[in-house]
């Protein structure tokens, strides 16, 4: 078996098995607002991965001078974030602070182009053909149906 594949499956299961060992003061953290991470076991660091398992993953490390069960963390970006220590891991969703205007603009632009394209093409499909513009679908050219 491909090692990475097995690791992936174990990683998929791991958050459900080990997430109870990492608690947040606010289980729905908001970007830019500090939260406290509480661990079941004292650790010297917590690794924070923004958009884990992607090509644009970015990792930060929260360090303590001596092993501790509490870490303060201010999420920089909204999205799915993986928190992990040597013995536990947990995924959290960091909410947007206010509104994501860049997200809204991309959504409106992309949606406008795609659905606008569908509406435009449907209108052309059912538009009456002007003389000399080309012959549209003619059922009489179906000799065998």
């Amino acid at each position: 078996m491909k090692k990475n594949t097995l690791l992936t499956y174990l990683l998929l299961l791991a958050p459900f098995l080990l997430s109870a060992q990492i608690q947040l003061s606010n289980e729905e953290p908001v970007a830019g607002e500090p939260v406290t991470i509480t661990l079941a076991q004292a650790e010297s660091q917590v690794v924070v991965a923004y958009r884990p398992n992607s090509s644009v993953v970015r990792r930060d490390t929260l360090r303590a001078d001596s092993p501790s069960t509490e870490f303060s963390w201010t999420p920089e970006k909204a999205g799915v974030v993986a928190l992990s220590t040597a013995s536990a891991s947990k995924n959290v969703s960091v909410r947007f602070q206010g509104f994501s205007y860049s997200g809204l603009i991309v959504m409106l632009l992309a949606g406008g182009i795609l659905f606008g394209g569908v509406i435009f093409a449907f209108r052309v499909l059912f538009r009456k053909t002007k003389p000399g513009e080309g012959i549209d679908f003619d059922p009489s050219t179906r000799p065998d149906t």
Partner: protein
Amino acid sequence: MNELCRLFGGIIRSKKTFIVSQERKNWQSKLGFILAASGSAIGLGNIVFFSSNAYQYGGGAFYLPYFLALFVLGLPIMMMEFGLGTLTRQSFPLALRKLVGKKGEFFGWFSIAGSFIITMYYVAILGWACGMLLGTFGSLFEPGITAPFTPFETPTESVSSTVFFFNMIAGWQPLILIFIIWALNVLILRKGTHSIERAVRVFVPLMWIFMIGLAIRGLTLDGGFDGVMFLFTPDFQGIAEPNVWRGAFSQMFFSLSLGMGIMTAYASYLPKNADQVNNSLLVSFLNCSFEFIAGTAIFSLLFVFALNPAGTSLSLSFFVIPQGIAGLSTLPWVVRLFGFIFFLLIVMAGLTSSVSLMEAFVSAIIDKLKLKRNKALIYVAIVGLIGSALFSLPQIIDAGLSGNGTLGLTLLDLMDHWVFNYSLLIVGLAEVILIGWVLGADRLREALNEHTKLRLGKWFVGLIKYVIPVLLTVVIVSSLISEYRPNGPDGGLLYGSNYEMPGWEWLPVFIPIFWLVVSITFSYLLTNRSNK
């Protein structure tokens, strides 16, 4: 019209072609064709592959290469493939032969070979999706399940779709389900366009309704809208990565069913005066709009339940999304209902695509060998069934499941890597070079403009002759270069060399050689066989 006949050497009005046209069935309506072509394009790739890529490559930032791939690559090639079908009223290999000669037919059959291999494992995946669909009535959303191999032997404390999936593929159930999927394919194709149209008139609208339903449910969850914003908010950190652009171009090719002979086969059942420019716009925009809705549904689930799509798009469909669905409600019947809708959606989307993949092959051998449709269907289905079984059942090559039961997945993974990443793009490159330079992109443009309400400008010629060949060459060459990574994270000289398969270490080397030898031999033999 006379100009058109002169351009194509009179083939459109030749006696032989006229006889073929008389025998060829047609779509019963414009809508029937649009539903069938968009049903072909909308498949597993739209539901999970797009979301997986968007997550991988920076959310909203992925739309930049995605739209470029749609407008510069996807739309012109779709217009070309539709055009080949209506101008010649032949399936892909014979259409290419008529327009550019024997070398064109060779690449046509090469494309059919690749798409048939894809059909085999695509049906295997559909069989698994059927198993998960049945599981929604059984133990898929229940705790305490096991699979008969490490690390899944201990009963789970909570719902685990991963363990359910591995338990399912460890049994013989997938074989029966794969048989059923192939039988459904034959049933839908038995009367050609007539029966395809009847099926897509039910399946395609249902797919849209179910997907919109899932998106609405996702958006109305607490935090669902933040999930949608997570999809669209651009992260430009990785936009300069070649993988992002390669991902977008491959996604577009597969998503629009290009380079597989499907669109030419479907368009060959249209009257030759059909507006293929507008048809291409309609099918492409419908396909990408479906992806847009699927993305909102899936990202809202991922965000609300803090899931990340680790691994492949298969893991997203079978492990991650069901895990999110399990949390949709405290009422078990609501969870089962949404699970049922999701997997029924996957099965329907997959079925409309597998039907089109099979039709590309069946119509080609009917045209070439003049076989009866039912006979051709049975031959193709039997070979396909054997192939799908090989892809789906780990026991066939690993009786004791001692390799953790995933050797079947590994075989699929290896074949998918070579055929999906290279076959479609190689065919696309050959197509644009042959049509652009041998036939002449100008001639194709004039032929398409004969019957369109949206006339194509000179830009179309530039794209077909220069831009697309350069883009596809860059993508193929950069993919080949990235295969060589002796010190990379995956190790090995060839993809899969690091797989632990005692006794099967030769498989990663064998698979690409097997694909190339079989496809080239198949293409050579059929190209050199005289038309009956």
